[in-house]
């Protein structure tokens, strides 16, 4: 018995070691990004290349440049506004759909649900041409909030699917009791579904936030004005102009973009996990 415990201890140590090694590999690119952002642009092609900058070279000039010279704050606020609007709209719209689909029988329900699932299978990018046409017809091109309805449309299927699974797990009796008390469907949605499904809505919203925060191809296609650019376009715009890439600026901006997301993730990581697993384990 004692031998077995010892063996177990040994494997635990081995596992931890392997995991630690893997964790370092996972982190390397981000660390390198930060270390590049901290050195002057002139030191980028120094020889030999270094993973960490020389101590005497460490500088915040890239960050200062990004915060003062570029439209970083503007881009940041643009991304924030778009992401928050997207999650608010997506949360209200898909929780309502999820409740209707998860709790009621009505004509065409299974067809509707299959249709929603089907669109989950098709990558949003494939529709970029007709969606662009639509954006033009609706006057949504080159408008910051013109991005929102498209983002909402992209995340609706997945959000609805996730929240529906959660709503179906709420005990039937709770709903029945409310209806017997004379509550209307809308009242039940507000007083039961929203509060009880809050964890699912929260975790879905975190994913939706990420989707909107990092979305690049669509925003790059429909946004023209410099002041309307979101962070991903601004970062990519720094890159590759004139055969001359200022990596220090690129990575300083990237670091500043990544920070809020990492903070958000560390605070809400429990919800992240719940949101992911709700759909997958039931499968």
């Amino acid at each position, binding site marked *: 018995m004692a031998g077995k415990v010892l063996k177990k201890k040994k494997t635990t140590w081995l596992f931890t070691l392997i995991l630690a090694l893997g964790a370092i590999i996972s982190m390397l690119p981000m660390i390198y990004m930060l270390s590049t952002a901290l050195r002057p642009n002139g030191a*980028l092609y120094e020889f030999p290349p270094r993973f960490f900058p020389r101590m005497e070279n460490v500088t915040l000039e890239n960050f200062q440049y990004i915060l003062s010279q570029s439209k970083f704050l503007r881009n940041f606020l643009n991304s924030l506004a778009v992401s928050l609007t997207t999650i608010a709209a997506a949360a209200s719209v898909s929780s309502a759909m999820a409740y209707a689909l998860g709790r009621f029988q009505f004509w065409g329900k299974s067809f509707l649900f299959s249709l929603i699932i089907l669109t989950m299978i098709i990558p949003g990018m494939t529709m970029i041409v007709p969606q662009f046409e639509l954006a033009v017809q609706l006057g949504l091109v080159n*408008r*910051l*909030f013109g991005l929102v309805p498209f983002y909402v449309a992209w995340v609706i299927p997945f959000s609805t699917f996730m929240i529906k699974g959660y709503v179906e797990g709420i005990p039937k009796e709770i709903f029945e009791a409310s209806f017997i008390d004379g509550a209307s469907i809308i*009242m039940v949605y507000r007083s039961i579904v929203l509060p009880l499904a809050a964890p699912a809505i929260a975790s879905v919203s975190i994913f939706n936030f990420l989707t909107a925060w990092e979305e690049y191809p669509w925003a790059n296609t429909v946004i*023209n004005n410099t002041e309307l650019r979101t962070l991903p376009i601004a970062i990519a715009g720094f890159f590759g102009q004139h055969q001359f890439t200022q990596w220090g600026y690129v990575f300083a901006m990237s670091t500043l973009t990544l920070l809020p997301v990492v903070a958000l993730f560390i605070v809400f990581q429990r919800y992240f996990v719940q949101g992911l697993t709700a759909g997958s384990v039931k499968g």
Partner: protein
Amino acid sequence: MLKPKRFLLVLCLIMSVVIIVPAVHASEPVTLNFWHHYSAQSKENETLTNVLIPQFEKENPDIKVNAVSHEWAELHDKILISVSTNQLPDVMRADIAWLPEFQQLGVLVPLNKEMADFDSVAGQLLDSAMSTAKIAGDTYGLGLNTNSKILFYNTDMLNAAGVNVPTTTDEWAAAVRKLSGNNAQGQQVWGWNEPGLSGWNLAPFIWSFGGSLTNDEQTAASGHINSAETVNAIETFVSLVSEGALTGFNSGDIPMTDGFGTGRYAMMLEGPWKIAELTGAYPDVAYGTAMMPAGKGGSVSVLGGEDIAMFNSANKEAAWKFMKFMTSEFAQTQMATVGQIPVSKAALDSQTVQEQEFAPFLEAIQTAKARPTVAAWSKMDNELMVAVNAVIQGEKSAQQAMDDLAVVFDGLLKE
């Protein structure tokens, strides 16, 4: 308690806020959207946004200019997207090679027909620059700046290798080979940097070697893009690539300015903006300039430059004012100090411009040729890149690739 009706109302409100609010964006008197490809972090862009536009807005308080910087290739794509959806800006700074394509789409304003004072405005600009905007008898833009590429060489590297500045294409190929190898730190060094495989990059070689892209009428390419001279140019280029003497067009290569500034590329063919760029980023590098080496076809560089043009959908009066401003002596002189060769005759004569190091570029322009001024050029450009890449990858011989390309070019020129 929220009633169904009110709930619906709230939802509709949310929806309409999301969709409509951006649409009722406050409208200023007149806002001119101006798209260009001065790099976002460049001196040119600084001059544009900090000097020129404020000055223009001071002179014209009822007009606001919204200048948007796009990357070069992306600007072309953005225009195409916007044509398909009527979302064009008012004014654009267009590479002279794009004008025929946009003109064919029917979105450009024929200035000579619609602007009363066109002749007097055009008369103040170089004829050679104005001719770049002339398509089938009408003029669709004003020359904005002109340029050509000349040879830049790293003086120390040439001295160290005992190589003279090449003046002929044979000397050039030999010099490129001799300058390649490893430096003291064991890093690879290349004799030549060529940052792309498009016509802008390859045409100077094709022409100087005595070849051509199309016939003079620009109606067919067979016998030109696959002539012995053109094939010879491509073969020479590709053999330098495969010997590790020429690079720059790969995704993984050191960017041109960085590589030249840090002594990894010994020579390159570049335009006037490179001087300001090198002064800013690598002030210590010692370099000289020379003409494109001459071959069977002479020393032929590529004519570059931009026109400023307006679209049909523009506020024409305001757009024309801005175009006149950008080609005025003041604006042209300002831009000259950051590496843009003016096309305004008055600006060219001015003291400030005379002090710039434009002489070798102006000399190169004398013998430089323009890329084909046809609507299909962007597509031809892409096909040329694909064809030359096939030779580099060893999939086809240069002759074979150019023969195939001739068929493709002929087809595109007929469209």
